């Protein structure tokens, strides 16, 4: 089909369907920074928010959420969801500190991988809706950890390497940020350059079609859940390093923000569409929003309201679905 000249001209300036969320979230990040800076200038006379040290520190804290969100995105792209994240994080952290020594980090990752494997097998082979199966796995992991720790924060401490990865710095750049960057590059390459990545998008669009096209859909689903679990385990291990030990419920604060970050970044909650760059920006947006609200000493009630409103407004701007007309 030939298009009229003005159409192509418009097309040049029109953002692609997948770019819009990324541009809008990036713009919103600037708005948050501007509002926060005006506030600090007004109350303290300094532009704390714009100093590189402050931003790096915020990104370091954001790395834990970022790593979880990277894994969550893989699962959401499939059209599934992983609600077992909270206790996968806690289990990774607790087992890593329990084992200790050089094996601490591999064990933390391994626990996450194992949880992911169970999730993947249940969803891909037993065909139980991921929403409910991962919920059950989360309950089981919680039970295992309560039985293991006796319901208290375990006394075991994080190893030096875990603490270094979480709070150490190389040339002023936090190591946690580098870990997040490495995870991001791997996930981005996986999604854009490999057959597995393409299969993930295909399954998210229509699993039956992907199956008929010869994609080993069940294996891809298992692999994505394994990766998601492993990244949650990694995040838990780092988090234990950050607070020097593991504690009950340490992963609870990461599930909903991770889903929100992925969705704000433009990934469709029903799967099949979305770019990793969006998730990255979504995480930064949530982390900065949180930090600006805490600078403003916003009470928890106001934070929750603003947090929810931001998600809805962002989605109203670019996340609206198609009206069903046939």
């Amino acid at each position: 089909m030939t298009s009229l000249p003005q159409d192509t001209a418009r097309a040049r300036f029109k953002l692609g369907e997948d770019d819009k969320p990324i541009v809008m979230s990036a713009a919103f990040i600037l708005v948050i920074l501007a509002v926060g800076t005006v506030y600090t200038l007004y109350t303290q006379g300094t532009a704390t928010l714009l100093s590189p040290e402050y931003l790096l520190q915020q990104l370091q804290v954001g790395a834990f959420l970022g790593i979880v969100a990277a894994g969550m995105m893989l699962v959401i792209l499939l059209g599934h969801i992983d609600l077992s994240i909270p206790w996968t994080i806690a289990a990774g952290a607790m087992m890593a500190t329990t084992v200790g020594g050089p094996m601490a980090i591999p064990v933390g990752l391994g626990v996450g991988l194992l949880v992911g494997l169970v999730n993947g097998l249940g969803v891909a082979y037993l065909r139980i809706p991921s929403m409910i199966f991962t919920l059950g796995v989360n309950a089981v992991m919680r039970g295992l950890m309560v039985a293991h720790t006796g319901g208290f924060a375990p006394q075991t401490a994080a190893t030096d390497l875990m603490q270094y990865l979480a709070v150490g710095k190389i040339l002023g750049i936090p190591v946690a940020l580098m870990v997040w960057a490495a995870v991001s590059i791997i996930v981005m390459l996986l999604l854009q350059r490999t057959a597995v990545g393409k299969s993930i998008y295909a399954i998210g669009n229509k699993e039956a079609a992907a199956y008929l096209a010869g994609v080993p859909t069940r294996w891809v689903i298992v692999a994505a859940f394994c990766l998601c679990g492993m990244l949650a385990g990694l995040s838990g291990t780092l988090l234990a390093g950050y607070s020097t030990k593991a504690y009950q419920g340490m992963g609870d604060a990461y599930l909903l923000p991770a889903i929100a970050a992925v969705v704000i970044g433009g990934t469709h909650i029903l799967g099949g569409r979305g770019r990793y760059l969006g998730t990255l920006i979504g995480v930064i947006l949530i982390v900065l929003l949180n930090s600006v609200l805490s600078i403003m000493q916003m009470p928890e009630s106001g934070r929750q309201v603003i947090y929810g409103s931001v998600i809805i407004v962002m989605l109203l701007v670019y996340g609206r679905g198609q009206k069903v007309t046939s």
Partner: protein
Amino acid sequence: MSDLRVRLSQNAALLTAIAIFILFYVFYNMNHPRGFSVAVLIQNSNEVFTLAMVAMAQTVPVLMGGLDLSVGAIMTLVNTIASHLLNGSPAQMAFGMGVSLAAGAACGFVNGCIVVYGRIQPIIATLATGAIFLGLALFLRPSPGGNVDDDLSWAATNDLYEIAATYGYAQDGEATWFQPIAWIPVPLVLLVLVVVFIWLPFSRSVTGRTVYAVGSGEGAAYMSGLPIDRAKIAAFTLGGFFAGIGGLYLTLQTSSGNADIPQAGAYTLNSIAAVVIGGTSLLGGVGTAIGSVFGALILRTISFNFRIFEIDPLMQPLFEGVVLLAAVSLGAFRVLRVKNTLELFR
């Protein structure tokens, strides 16, 4: 005869849930140190009612093919509202109850409008509104507390005799005709009333049938000229209303309001589990709120059983988790019967 068989097979999931519940509950009472007693029944039905309401609240959006992650938050918000209003003169208390229930329905209405007119996926829209509702609840009750009329909360959480005795009906509950029903716990009566006077009429109305139709196939429902938007908004509003009843009852039961975020999350997650155990498909279109009530009963009865067997409290979460996982995995038997792999991908 074949009609009966069809009806049985259509309600197989519901009947299974009822059977499992009866099994668990009879087992519980047989092993209870003091055997079956009305006191235990009252206590149990008090513990069940709120979850049963929240599970019913979850069912309506799920039937429509959506999911409501804000039911626990609505329950909590109504809990905090009611903890401010349930005192004073009878008229004031009635007003307070009305406001509480209206607030629940209003929250659901907001959810419905965002889903219908904002065209945002229910799961993510309610995730966001849930955060807002919890924020409002925290605003109303920064720390737990409340001032709830003692008579009202006593009457609502005991048997019918106590209602009559408290408010002087049926010769203070001593009337002869009243005795056969005097032992029935109030929450059970309320549960039956809600099912009979709200759920059944709704599910038989055009709007209710449209909810099922949207869950089965939104495109087909649209082409059949059904009022889709109205049904979606009604589904969320009714869900909010049920969650509001749960929150109101929680207030009467605990005599206080508490903006407890982990509790809200736990109720939301348990409501999903109850819905699934009760035989409602998460894909939508199949199931009933009555099933979810039994799903909630099953979940709670499992905890009751833990209590009397004195299982190490540290092992309880693990047992609960395993039972939950096993219960939701029951549906997996379908996979074994599928001959054409393509049918798996529904």
